[in-house]
């Protein structure tokens, strides 16, 4: 395993380390979500963008309709079998670096609907970085999930 890693990682020099940190910091500071609200969780996502729990303080209230302009896809709601190809297509259209937050129980694991119609967890279709539990997760839970994502990006744990 050491051989596999040997060529892959070179310790950064002083300038590139600071630059790397700056880039990570910038990536978290205005992470624009793609609007992918599907069901009940979408309403809580909208409430998170509202005035009471303001997502705009983190530079995130601009939900981009076009996935090309978005960094973060918050899959908010249950993903049916018919919707899964659409989800994958929207994810593919997003430009790197991109992250996915699976919001709610239905997106994370299929939730209470363990049946023929739903994809049991959106991670069957797209790679997920953060799972936010709840049915639906309140705005504070969603904020906590997004903050966790920001922390992990800033620390370099999740790269893209």
């Amino acid at each position: 395993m050491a051989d596999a890693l040997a060529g892959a990682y070179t310790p950064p020099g002083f300038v590139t380390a600071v630059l790397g940190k700056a880039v990570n910091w910038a990536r978290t500071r205005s992470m624009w979500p793609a609007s992918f609200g599907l069901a009940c969780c979408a309403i809580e996502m909208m409430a998170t963008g509202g005035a009471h729990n303001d997502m705009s303080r983190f530079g995130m209230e601009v939900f981009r309709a076009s996935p090309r302009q978005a960094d973060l896809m918050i899959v908010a709601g249950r993903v049916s079998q018919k919707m899964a190809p659409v989800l994958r297509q929207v994810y593919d259209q997003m430009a790197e670096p991109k992250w996915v937050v699976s919001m709610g129980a239905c997106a994370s694991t299929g939730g209470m609907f363990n049946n023929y119609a739903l994809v049991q967890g959106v991670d069957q279709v797209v790679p997920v970085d953060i799972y936010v539990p709840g049915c639906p997760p309140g705005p504070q839970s969603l904020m906590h999930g997004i903050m966790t994502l920001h922390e992990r990006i800033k620390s370099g744990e999740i790269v893209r």
Partner: protein
Amino acid sequence: MSKPSDTVPGDLEAPDFNEGASPADLEPATDDRHTVHDLWLSGTEAPRQLGSFTHEGAQEMLHEESDQILSSQRGTIVEDDFEGAAGSGDDELQIINMGPQHPATHGVLRLHIELDGETIRRVKPIIGYLHTGMEKTAEALTFMQGSTNVTRMDYLSPLHNELCFSLAVEKLLEVEVPPRAQAIRVLMSELNRIASHLLWSATSGFDIGALSMMIYGLRERESVLEFFEKTTGLRMNHNFIRPGGVAADLPPGWQGDVMGIIETVTAGVADFETLLLGNPIFIERTEGIGILTREECLAYGVTGPLARASGIDYDVRKVFPYSGFEQYEFEVPTASNGDVYDRFVVRFEEMRQSMRILEQVVETIPAGDYRTENRKVTPPPRARIDESMEALIHHFKIFTEGFRVPAGETYQAVESSRGELGMYLVSDGGPKPWRLHVRGPSFAHVQALPMMLTDSLIADTVAALASADPVMGDVDR
């Protein structure tokens, strides 16, 4: 794409959408009946790769359709007011796709729209992107658990769904719900109507271009959600109204909370009306748009604020009263033009009438039980379980096996924020429903979209769709 196995539960394969998805493997998805429009892509991606994934086959709008389908897509089945494309040849017509991921389709609704320049000629809604198999799930859950499933259908008015389900079960059980429980149900139901209309005004205003409506509407709604959280424990999808009554009594001080909500929302609605209804831009964008005539509403089962804006005076709370609504004084606002403007007027007035009902509930709510005494249906109080063996057994039976509902079938309707929400419940005498069919109001409204949209401009699609207030959870279940 793999499909679930037919008879053995539990060997469902997770579909792998990346299987064989390299560009070389995919066949171009054209045949005689369909044309896939090429997407312009940068040189790194193969053409046709993305288009074929989301192809919906025979459910899409086709270029050649039978006359009957054409008349339904043109919205002329009830009234033939279609004016043919003057001067545009067939090759100038273009079918565009709107959704299912779209900021203004209010959920995952997909519309195929045939355009002649800017004018809409045909519309075909394609639904099913939020199909959750809730009717099948309802057959696997007991009647006590049924509220948790049903509440997530129309997720903007969860309490209405729960109320309809509970009323249907109680009808089959033939149990009486105590008057205090009925009053609590009315209270929660009207608060939910206000919350739903506030969210609707927020998103509709936002779609039409009044961007600040989003902030204002959500702000007023937060006060209602705070009360919901205090009473039911959750902001949405409460599972509060259950067969037999409600899950818990109202918290102390609720009268002050409700009066505070009434004050806030009254001021808010007055603000919205000033902001919107007199605004010349708003009037231009909404008057005469998305008209539904009375005959079209009747033929398609359009109910609720849409029907009332077209002049049909049908409100289930007045015509087929339930849960004690007949004792409260309130009016049902109607309008005559059936356009988007009238729907705004009707919904704002409905919020005021709901607040009138809330005031009456606060004044006249009787003391008493918040759920029926019938211990075969509602669980006993927790303290009794330590004292009485019978209470322990009842609790155990209700939460493990579930209470049995006598065999029979019934249809129960309530007036949800969107229209008539109905449930057809069939029981076979066991602890779980045999069949639960939910008549969602938005299903009929989405079906009526061609009639609202044809022969108008593409820019009016968003306004008309917003005014129809479809909730896809209701449509697809």
